């Protein structure tokens, strides 16, 4: 029993979210014949890649003890730029789009660092304001890519593997290694786990925060560009609510909102869990209205289970 607890808690090598992923995979493969096909699985990967890429950056920001609510808007802006600027060439448009993510991330990070205003507030403001920027830039219009090369990229495959899924998995691997193995990654944990101590130890906490905001800005922009390649177009409302699903995925993956704890592998599990649930419920033809309720209930259930396991683990009084 104790071993089972330890196992579920993730002190072994399997994180609880992955058990959940395995359970729903088994469940859906019994419920639908299409579910386990290679095509469907790579579909799931492509569909989760958008939220997934943002979630990689969000994991860093949240381990760092912050949060970024502006990612959906940044994604929308980058998508619009990557399509709207194609008169100057696709390369320039894509570079400009990615740069917009870097810059907005840097602005968020700089404000959090220099003014000391809570990241929730800073990025809530940015979430509203950047959406305004999109509308100012696009004047409410959707943009269309005239060049099919752009949208061909979004649907291309290498062998049976879609390019977008490959990009997502490579980014996941890189971000996992950066978090685990580099000075910046380790210091991100330190700053989130105990900012006071990190400051005393001479860690430049402001800089690390800013770098992480730049990272999440970049990934939001990258997700925006890749989403635009899937559509060959960009709409000004693109990315609404994405911040909510991203945060949900990261939390499902075990990263703590209070900072100092989390992992990219967990986040990958969280993202896949949401993707598989959506895909599986589509295959089972669960009505859209019920999907919303089911996702909400599952999220709360996972929170409860996670908390129960942790209560048994810690001997403190739960306040």
């Amino acid at each position: 029993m104790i071993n089972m607890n330890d196992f579920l808690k993730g002190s072994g090598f399997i994180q609880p979210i992955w058990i959940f992923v395995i359970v729903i995979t088994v469940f859906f493969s019994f419920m639908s014949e299409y579910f386990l096909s290679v095509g469907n699985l790579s579909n799931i990967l492509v569909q989760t890649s958008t939220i997934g890429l943002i979630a990689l950056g969000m994991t860093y920001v949240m381990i760092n003890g912050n949060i970024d609510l502006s990612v959906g808007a940044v994604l929308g802006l980058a998508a619009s730029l990557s399509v709207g600027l194609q008169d100057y060439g696709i390369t320039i448009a894509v570079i400009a789009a990615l740069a917009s993510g870097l810059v907005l991330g840097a602005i968020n990070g700089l404000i959090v660092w220099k003014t000391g205003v809570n990241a929730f507030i800073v990025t809530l403001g940015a979430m509203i304001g950047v959406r305004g920027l999109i509308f100012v830039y696009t004047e409410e219009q959707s943009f269309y890519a005239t060049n099919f090369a752009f949208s061909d990229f979004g649907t291309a495959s290498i062998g049976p593997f879609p390019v977008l899924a490959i990009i997502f998995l490579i980014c996941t691997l890189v971000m996992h290694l950066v978090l685990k193995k580099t000075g910046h990654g380790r210091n991100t944990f330190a700053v989130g786990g105990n900012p006071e101590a990190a400051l005393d130890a001479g860690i430049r906490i402001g800089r690390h925060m800013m770098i992480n905001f730049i990272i999440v800005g970049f990934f939001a922009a990258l997700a925006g560009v890749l989403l635009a390649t899937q559509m060959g177009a960009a709409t000004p409302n693109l990315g609404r609510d994405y911040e909510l699903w991203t945060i949900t995925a990261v939390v499902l993956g075990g990263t703590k909102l209070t900072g100092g704890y989390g992992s990219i592998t967990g986040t990958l599990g969280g993202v896949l869990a949401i993707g598989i649930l959506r895909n599986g419920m589509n295959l089972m033809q669960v009505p859209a209205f019920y999907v919303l309720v089911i996702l909400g209930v599952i999220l709360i259930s996972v929170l409860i289970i996670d908390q129960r396991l942790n209560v048994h683990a810690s001997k403190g009084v739960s306040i």
Partner: protein
Amino acid sequence: MASIEQGKQAIMLSKKHKAGLLNFLSAQGILVFFLICMFAFSLFSEQFLSQSNIMTVVRQASIIGIIAVGVTVVIIGGNLDLSVGSMLSFSTVLVVDLHDKIGPAGAIILMFVLTLIIGAVNGFLIGFMRLNSLIVTLAMLSAIQGLVLIYSGGKNVDIANQSDTWFAFFGRGYVLGIAVPVILFAILAIIVQVVMSHTSYGRRIFAVGGNPAAAVYSGIRKNWCVFSTYLISAFCVSCAALVLGSRVMGSQNNVGQGYELLVLAGIILGGTSLLGGAGSIWKTIIGVLILGFIQNGLLLLGYPYYTQWLVTWVIIILAVWLDLANKRKRLFTTHS
């Protein structure tokens, strides 16, 4: 030693008096900012300060305001409530749909009861199960939206006979020339402000938000306190739904979408900290009104509606930053 202490205090006090005006202004910074905004808009638009325009803005702001009153209590208690948007859709659809089926009185009562039950679910999960409020209310945001759609089957609901139902009073009525939504907003705000600052219940909520562990170690029933804040929030949402349903005499399933963010923006702008244990209803009222007037002023000046988002971005951060800077007596943080 005592004399030295007193000496120090005397020095501090005299300094305080000298800087009295400055302190007052910086403490009321948001109010000053509010007046400056009003003044600036009135220079460029004749209608801006007209009575009818002001009444329009206040009336429009009162729905957000009513919800914000409840959410402010939740935030003072140290939590967040992002589910109010969906909850507003839920309550409005419910009261409008039931109006023709069981009559206005029954519809209102049932709507309040069911909304309070949803509030109780939030409260139970966050207060008693001690789950993180951000994630729980986020999940509830999605789940309640689903419930609304399941209930209505995705259809709009309308009140068939709109001309002679007393239900119209809440959204369209006037008492002494003042719109009923404004009166409701004012009454709720006053009651909740009095409760928060003059009752033992309010004191407990401040304690729970200020330091939950210490509140428990002081014998306060923290779980109940947190639970009750979500009931207050749900109650306020019900009142807002009453106004909204009566104003429109119909409802869509997503009518409350995005309200959670507007409410939060208003509260933050007013200067209530998201950390809990501090804040006031007055601040929230000012914050909500600022948002309303900025939106209205920009439209009157002929700017497209989305410019208000850019302005909101800037002023939210400026407002919170200047407040912080004033407290720490320096503009920027010092760490690298």
